[in-house]
Structure formats: C-alpha cells, structure tokens
C-alpha cells in the first residue's frame, strides 16, 4: 500500500434539498454544501481544513465519517471504496476513523461517568469482554493526558473543565486505536491557555501512535504550525491547498490572503493592514456564477464572473483556483 493512497477523496459532493422557492413550484432548491472536493491524506499526516461557516467543512467531516451519504464522488480508504457503505459494512471502518467534536460540553453524555464514556466504544465494537479492557481504557486516558486515570474514572463530565472534557473525547477516540482522527473545531470553545494543550496533545499522538489528523477550523491561527498541509475551503470547494509554509507565507488565492491577513498577531508593534472582506459567505443555495468568490473578491476582474477558475499548479504540493494565476 503506497502512503499516497491512505485516504483519497475525489470529486465529493453533497447537495441538500432546501424545499421549494414557492408553493407548487416545480424545481427544488439545493444547498450546495460540498461541491466537488478532492484531496488525499497520507499516513500520520496532519491536514488543516480552513474556512468560514457555510463553507461546507463540517458537512465534509460528516461525509468522511459516513454520517451523511454523498450525492456524488468517491472516498477511498486504503484503496477500498468506502463511499456508500451501509452501517454494517462500515462498522469495522469506524474503528479506524474517529471524530473529535467542537463542543466538549455537548459531546459528552451528562449521565455517564468518564469510565463509561471511554469504555463505550469498546462495548460497541464487541471488545466488552477482552481481558485487557481496563488496561486499554487506562492507556487511552493516560495517552490523552488524563493522568492518573483512576482519579477521573468515576467522575461525571460536569465536574471537569473544558480542556479535560476535550481530553475525555480524545481518549474515547483513542481507545479503538484509530488511524485517522477527524477533529472538527476541537479548540474553538476552549480558552487560549488550554488550546495549546489540546493541539500539542494531537501533535504528540501523530508521532507516538502514527495517527493522521484532519483538523477542521475557521481560524488558521489556532492551528499554528501543527499542520503539515492546509486546504482553504470556500463555498463547498477547496480554493487553495499546499504545505503549511507555502500557504501561510506565500498565499496565492485572494481569499487565502484575506483570511491570513485577519489572523490576530499578538504584538501591537506588528499591527498591519488587514484585508477585511465585505459581507459574508453567500448562501450556498445560490452559488455565484463563474468564480464563486468573485462578488467579495477585492481583485476580481470581468472574466471572473463568467468562468469557473481551474486549479492552477504552483508547485508539486501547492495548488490554487484563481483566474489571475492562469498564465
């Protein structure tokens, strides 16, 4: 198995029906939540998916987890097509791809103890009676930084702080020894002093356990230099993808440039001109013609309204979809 084909996503689309524009109207409106996404993930690689709300990043996460069924396109895991598996066929796969959610206050059942929460995935996957069940749970908890595990086992989520709860969520993901962790805004609800803790934990896990991480966020700044590659999403598409340094230091798409310019820099001496885009991400029901970014683009030209820009290859690893880059 080549490392290149660990997780492959090709032309993935998800359109939701949004009801009819008027009663008795024939055509059904569609929300183009994810509208043609391609990328690959290598083993133990960290990729950051960055975009504002409405760009489709959370829908993409649900598609990859098999919690939503894609409209078209393909997802391949270790060479196997996993796009349309049913719950039964997917069960084994779920062990290998685990998810960490945004809100650690909401994603834990308040009536379960920490031990029950971390043990649950084992029960679900039929490891309820393995002799080393308890050791597995303890190891997952301690790997997630809940040390010593005994102190936490009989607690309830409301007795823990936000950072500790997020560690519980991560421990519950680790207990199945996954190969990919999909983290959907895992730190945006946490205080700054605790964010670093969770990001460092994920960075450690990819080294100690060879876990690949898909890190979904609206704030490029919060990923820091933890990611290997960055993919910037806008209205259901990836508009720029490249290594972290390529994207951060040499952004090519005007949207990426704007996003990077508004990341707060914690030094008043480095206050700089920010490119503040007007308005907000348009409703994905009426996707603009041509380049979908052109109505908000500060450097748009006339032809942007008409033609959808192709992906321009800038280096072996760096691509951006902008007409201005086409030579």
């Amino acid at each position, binding site marked *: 198995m080549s490392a290149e084909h660990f997780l492959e996503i090709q032309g993935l689309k998800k359109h939701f029906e949004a009801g009819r524009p008027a009663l008795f109207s024939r055509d059904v409106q569609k929300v183009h939540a994810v509208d043609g996404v391609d990328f690959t993930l290598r083993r133990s690689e960290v990729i950051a998916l960055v975009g504002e*709300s409405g760009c489709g990043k959370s829908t993409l996460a649900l598609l990859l987890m098999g919690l939503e069924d894609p409209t078209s396109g393909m997802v391949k895991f270790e060479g196997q097509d996993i796009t349309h598996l049913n719950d039964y066929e997917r069960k084994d796969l779920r062990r290998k791809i*685990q998810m960490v959610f945004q809100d650690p206050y*909401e994603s834990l059942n308040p009536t379960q103890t920490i031990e029950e929460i971390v043990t*649950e995935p084992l029960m679900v996957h039929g490891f309820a009676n393995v002799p080393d069940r308890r050791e597995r749970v303890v190891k997952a908890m301690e790997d997630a930084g809940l040390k010593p595990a005994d102190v936490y086992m009989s607690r309830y989520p409301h007795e823990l702080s936000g950072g500790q709860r997020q560690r519980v969520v991560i421990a519950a993901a680790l207990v*199945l020894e996954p190969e990919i962790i999909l983290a959907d805004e895992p730190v945006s609800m946490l205080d*700054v002093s605790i964010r670093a803790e969770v990001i460092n934990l994920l960075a450690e896990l990819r080294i100690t356990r060879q876990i690949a991480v898909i890190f979904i966020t609206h704030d490029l700044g919060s990923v820091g*230099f933890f990611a290997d590659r960055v993919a910037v999403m806008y209205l259901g598409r990836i508009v720029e993808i490249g290594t972290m340094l390529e994207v951060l230091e040499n952004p090519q798409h005007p949207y990426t440039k704007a996003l990077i310019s508004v990341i707060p820099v*914690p030094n008043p001496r480095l206050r700089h001109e920010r490119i503040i885009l007007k308005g907000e991400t348009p409703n994905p029901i009426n996707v603009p013609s041509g380049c979908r970014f052109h109505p908000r683009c500060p450097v748009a030209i006339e032809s942007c309204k008409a033609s959808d820009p192709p992906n321009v290859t800038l280096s072996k690893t760096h691509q951006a979809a902008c007409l201005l880059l086409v030579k």
Partner: protein
Amino acid sequence: MQTTVQPTIALPQSESRFSTFLKAFRKSRTGVVGFWMIVVVVIIAIFAPLIAPYEQRASASTIESIYQPPSAQHWFGTDDAGQDVFSNFVYGARVSLIVGIFAALIAVLIGGSFGLIAGFFGGRLESSLMRFTDIMLVIPDLPLIVVIVALTKPSLFNIIFVIGLLGWTTTARVVRSQTLAVKSRKFVLRARAIGAGKAHIIVRHILPLVMPILVVQAVLVISLAILNESALSFIGLGDPTTLSWGQMLNFAFGRGATSTGAWWALFFPGFGIVWLVLGLTLFGQGLEQVLNPRLDTHHLMAGKPSLSKDALIKPLYPNTLVEVQNLSIHYVNEGKPPAKAVEDVSFTLKEGELLGLVGESGCGKTTLMLSLLRLLPSAGQIVNGKVFYKGKDLTALSEEELNDIRWRGISIVFQGAMNALNPVRTVGDQIAEAVVKHEPKFPKDKIPARVNQLLELVGIVDDQREHFPHQYSGGMRQRAMIAMALACNPDVIIADEPTTALDVMIQAQILELLDDLRKKLGLAVVFVTHDLGIVAELCDKVLVMYGGVTAEYADVDTIYNNPKHPYTQELLKAFPDLTKPKKKLSSIPGYPPRLDALPAGCRFAPRCPAAFDRCHTEQPALHSIGDNHIASCHLVEASK
C-alpha cells in the same frame, strides 16, 4: 524550573447523582409537602389491617348503627349499612393507589415507547404514530371510558386497563419532544460516529435523559387515573366487589346521605381523593422543577446598593470618564464560603480609550463589568471599592439615579446577546423600541430617522431594516446589538466577548466597526475577551485578570513586549503566533482556581513556573513598575 502541576487537585469532590438530586429536591417546598402527603396515604394503604379498627365492610347488625355521626367508637361515623367509615376509608386508600399505580404503569409504558420510537426514528413512522396520538387525544376520555367499562364487566382489572389505555397520550407527546431534543445533541452524533447501533443509542444515551421526564409524567398520570377511577365509581361503574373512595361516595350519595345530613359519609372519602391527588400534583411539580432543566430560571437582578461606608473617598483622576477604585465583589450563598469573584481591582478609562480586559473564563471579568452598572445577580455584592463615572460615585446612587446612567452613560453589549433579539419583530422595530424605552421624551416623528442613523453607523443597509432576526447572520445580529447599545449616545460601551462565537473574518469586521465608532463618536470602549490577539490589534491599554485579581495592567506595548507577571508571559507563549514559524506552543499546566476555594498565597502560584515558597503563603500586593504599569507578583517586588 518547570513544575508539573497535577490538575487533579482542583477537582471537586464527586457526588453521586442521587444525592445531588435529593439536595435540589429538598429546596422545592411544594415537592416535599406533596411527598409527605403521599407517604401518609401509602402508609395507611400498606398497614390497612393494623390501622382499621373493624374488618372491611363489616356490617353492624342493628338498625341504629346506620349513619351514626363520628364518635369514639366510629371516628368517621358509619355509613348506610352501618359500616365503619374510617375502616372503609383506610381500605379504600389501597384500591385507589392500586388503580393509580397500575394504570399509570400501562400508560407510561405505551406513551413512553410511542414517544421514544416516534422521536428517535422520525419520518413516516413518526407521523403515523403521532397522528394516532392526536386522534386519541381529542377523544374525550371519560365518556369513552364509561362506554367501554359499561360494555365490559366493570371489574377492577378492566378499569385499570381502560384507564391505562386511554391515559398515555400526553406522555407520548412529552417524551417525543424530549427525545427529539436529546437526539439532536452532539453526544448522540458522537455515539453514531463511534459506530453504535440504534438500540445502543436509545438505551445508553436517549433513555437516561428521557427518564426524568417519564418519572414526572408517571406521577401526574397516577393522579389522573385516581380521579378517573373515582369518577367511574361515582357514576356507578366501579367494581362492585371492591370499595374505593369513589365507590364510597357513590354509595353514600345514592343512599340518602345528603337527605339525612350524614356529611361524614361524603366528606371523608372526598377528602381522601383531594388529599392524594393534591399530594401527587405537588410532588410531580417539585420533581419537574428539579429534573427538567428547562424550567430553571436565570435572571440578572439589580443588586442591592452597597453601603457606601466612605463617602469621603474622592476620585483620584478627575479627568477620566470612568474610574474604578479597589473594587471587590463577592458572591454570597447561604451556608457556603463567599466566592471572591473580584478582589481589589482598579482601572481608569479616558474618553476615546480602548481598554482590553483579558482573562480566562471564570476569572471575574464579566462580574467586574456587570458591577459597574450594578447589574449583578442578587448573590453578588460589592463589598469594597468605588466606581466613579464623571465624578459621580455609582456605588452610592439610588436605583433611579443609576437608571439615568445605564444605557445613556454606559451601555453593554452582552456576550451571546445576538441571540437575544425578539424573533417575531423586525430589527428596525426593536431598535426603535430601545430608543423609546431609554429616552421616553424622544420626539416620535424623528424615531425612524434615528433608527436609520444608528443602523448606518453599524453598517446595516436601509433595506435590511425591515428584516427579521432570523434573516440576519450572526455578524449582522451582533451589529444590530451594537446599534441598540448606541441608541442613547453613551460615552462608554462595554463589549463582553462580542466576537467569541464568530468566524475570523466576521470578527475582524466587528472589531473594525468598534474601532471606527470609537474614532467617529469619541466612545470609550472596554473590550472583554480571552483572546490576546484581538487585544493586540485594537486596544490602547490592557488589564490582565487572573482568579479575580489584577495580574498586570499596562499599555498595550508593555504588555506584549515587556510583560512582568508570569501569567501574562505564559499566556503569550500559549498563543499561536504565525510570525514565528516552528515555535512550539506551550500551555499553562493546571486550571484556574475555583473562586470559593482560593489558594492561600498568590492565586496563580499553583500553575506558575517561577513560584517559590513565599508565593504559596502570601498574596502579592500590586506593585507599580513604571509609568502606568502595575503587576501583582513577588518577583516584581524583588527586582525593584
């Protein structure tokens, strides 16, 4: 030097869920009263043979013993057959309770499964189940029960069955809506992502959260069943072989108790029914208050004006707009040590100044801001210190005087306030209302122009004025809230985490707006946040709070380039800085202190990498380092 602090120290003692429930339930007075009312009936029912002086339905032989008034021999008198009413009353409690409990069991089982299945699976199954429920709901219960019981044999078993079969509709609806609410929560999605099947999710995740509501429903259905059984018996459709309270009423009423003036034969069984149903209702209400979190109320109430012990204290900086001097605020709860939310905090605010108030959640920053306008919850009290606004001492003003300053002098944009817009009125309407409410004398004909002006200030275009809040995005709603805060031309705006839930680009837009407004209108702004990056972009001065005290207070350049307090230094290291590639983020080990169990010395000492012995025993004073630079740290004192 780096010390690893075990975060476990800060963990509170774990309490079993049952004992927390008991504690909360005891506070509900009606619930406790109802509980004991039920207990009395249950005891009577269980020990009936011991309590009752006579056998059940033991008839006296002589004609004189009919309708005897209460006496030492017959406490509740006798009935038409000369039977002891007290004994029949005691045995009747058994029948009523049995009917209530078993009928409720049937109803809750049916209603619970209907609600759970409909709520969880949704789709066609849900609509057919719920339509069926609706049909059952509109059929009047009692006439139907009467018909069914009349057609079948009126035995106790039949009665229980019929009441149970018709009493489940409300339970089904309540359970369905609770299931829907639980189903949409993130932990259910997480369970699906783990690979859990439907049965597992229902049993492990949905049921535990639906159960409390089911319990409350069961209690209420019991009382309903008892009432129904009494009504049935009263109209003569009760089981003739058992004697329930309803049956007793029926016999007394039908056999001349009213005409002979034997009130006792009617009063005692009637009283029994009222007592038990009332007890159940009160108990159910008490349970509901504790178990249904949606009934919890959180109100911000104006705190009592604090005692201004030292009316002589004068502002130190007469040229400032706002001056806070040594302010301390405690939350006082009965039987608990006070939570020292804010201790000895001072700062000043000049016209057009932008002050950043930075700290982690729970560090007292919101409490501090609410106290400026005395908007604290009732437990919060200003125990020391002064707040001056244009030379006036706000801690000593009366409520009415303070109302003049709220909104017109100082206004607040609350955290998450963008969700506080009324969904059924247009945004323009709501802003007009804010103008009228705070300035009743504002000329009516000029209001639309004023609303337009306010919306223009915050960058909302005219044609969106008539839109409803749901047509606005999060960023737009926050703009509308800022427009409302500006309604009365305040000098000071307090923005409490106004961008926390917003995307970076929208966040940048709102920050730009606040900065613009400050320049255009000369506003002074206090910007409360946990995000150091935003503060660096925007503010003139920064106040860093930790555990209720000032850690450091200085101008923005000093805070970022020459911080003296270890907390400020650590916080900066934890912040991802994209101008410094490949720098590893460091996090601050441990967690902020609980405000009701503060460490003896410096509040940051348990997490501080530079802490030494003195830090754990002695609270550091505020040390002035240079011009307008204050830090509370023993190291600062040592280096002077």
